[in-house]
């Protein structure tokens, strides 16, 4: 049973939805929840054997159920950070400030050598211009990865922490059965355990770039990092 844990033992059943796991960025879930009451901002998506801390970014009561959009983690990566300038910082110093301002946590599995990379300088801009357009923390994270080294990437993991580093492409610890294969588009449709397939892993020797778990059909669409 897939549920949305609210607080303590309080939870609501999820009747349908999709969990979208990109290799870069923030995972999201669009769900229909068996609830008519107000839901808290911070929840946990319980997939059975895996719990995924998340934040409700949108919520709407429709026909006796609530449609919600979850974003992985604390939901602060879409917000503007506090402006700050650094002279010869390490990546981990910039990252620590960005994540603290966003209310997010750094994954201990992040690549140590990337975190220890020294930069010439760094400027975190919050918002600029006549319209005071905010610069999302997630976009600044992406820029930080771009200057931290070749192939450096980031994403919000299933446990809600933010990972930054270089891909190691471990084998996916999951058994799948192939349902369909879309060769020209480097995509596949598989039946699998929901918690076991994550982006950044190898599935049958192919690099998993994007995972979409369809909770209705109990199927998963996989896009492979090929031709990128």
């Amino acid at each position, binding site marked *: 049973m897939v549920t949305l844990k609210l607080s303590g033992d309080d939870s609501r059943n999820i009747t349908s939805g999709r969990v979208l796991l990109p290799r870069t960025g923030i995972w999201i879930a669009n769900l229909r929840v068996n609830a008519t009451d107000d839901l808290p901002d911070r929840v946990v998506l319980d997939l059975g054997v895996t719990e995924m801390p998340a934040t409700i970014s949108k919520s709407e009561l429709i026909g006796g159920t609530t449609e919600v959009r979850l974003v992985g983690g604390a939901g602060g990566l879409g917000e*503007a950070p506090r*402006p*700050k*300038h650094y*002279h010869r910082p390490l990546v981990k110093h910039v990252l620590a400030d960005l994540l603290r301002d966003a209310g997010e946590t750094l994954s201990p599995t992040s690549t140590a050598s990337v975190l220890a990379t020294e*930069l*010439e*300088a*760094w*400027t*975190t*801009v*919050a*918002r*600029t*211009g006549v*319209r*005071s*357009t905010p*610069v*999302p923390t997630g*976009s*600044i994270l992406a*820029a*930080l990865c*771009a*200057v931290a080294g070749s192939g450096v990437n980031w994403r919000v993991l299933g446990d809600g922490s933010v990972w930054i580093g270089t891909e190691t492409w471990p084998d996916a610890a999951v058994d799948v059965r192939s349902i369909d294969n879309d060769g020209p588009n480097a995509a596949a449709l598989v039946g699998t355990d929901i918690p076991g397939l994550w982006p950044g892993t190898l599935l049958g020797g192919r690099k998993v770039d994007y995972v979409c778990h369809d909770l209705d059909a109990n199927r998963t669409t996989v896009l492979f990092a090929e031709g990128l």
Partner: protein
Amino acid sequence: MNDRSLAAWEGMQDAQDPMGAYARMYRARVVAQSDDADEVDVRPDDPGLPDMAKIPLRHGIPGLRVHVAMGSYLLAGWDNGSPDKPFAALWNPDVHVVKVSFVADEIHFGSRAASEAFIEGTSYRGAEDSMLSGLLAAFSAMAAACSSGPLGPLQPGMQAAILAVQQFISSAAAARGFLSPKVFGE
């Protein structure tokens, strides 16, 4: 375009280029400058930007170093829109310049083909002072020798030579030894 349409259009632009903020330049005030004049600390007017310390200063002319008065305005931005490459450039025209240095193998004034060498003033003036002191002593000795006797007619000329040298020394002293004591070369 009404406000709602405009807001939607602006939102699309921002979503398309969320890091566009780094592709612009911002008015900023100099609050500190390094001793070698190559870096400045600035405070941007835009409150969405932080104070930025030790950012490279560019004048657009290689070899030029400029010390400015604190409070001078210029623009701050980033190479290629990358947050790890800040720089400052493009001074306001009302900036008060404290000191300018220009480092180059050759510097030509007035014409690209200018070939007259500038005098190295400090060394030249030192040599000139030595020569003038010597001339003054020589003329004074000769004037004394011409005070009487057959060389007596030469004395007015000797006195005039002494006066001319003394007037030059006096004028040079009034100009602190140089025509332009605030221009230096190597």
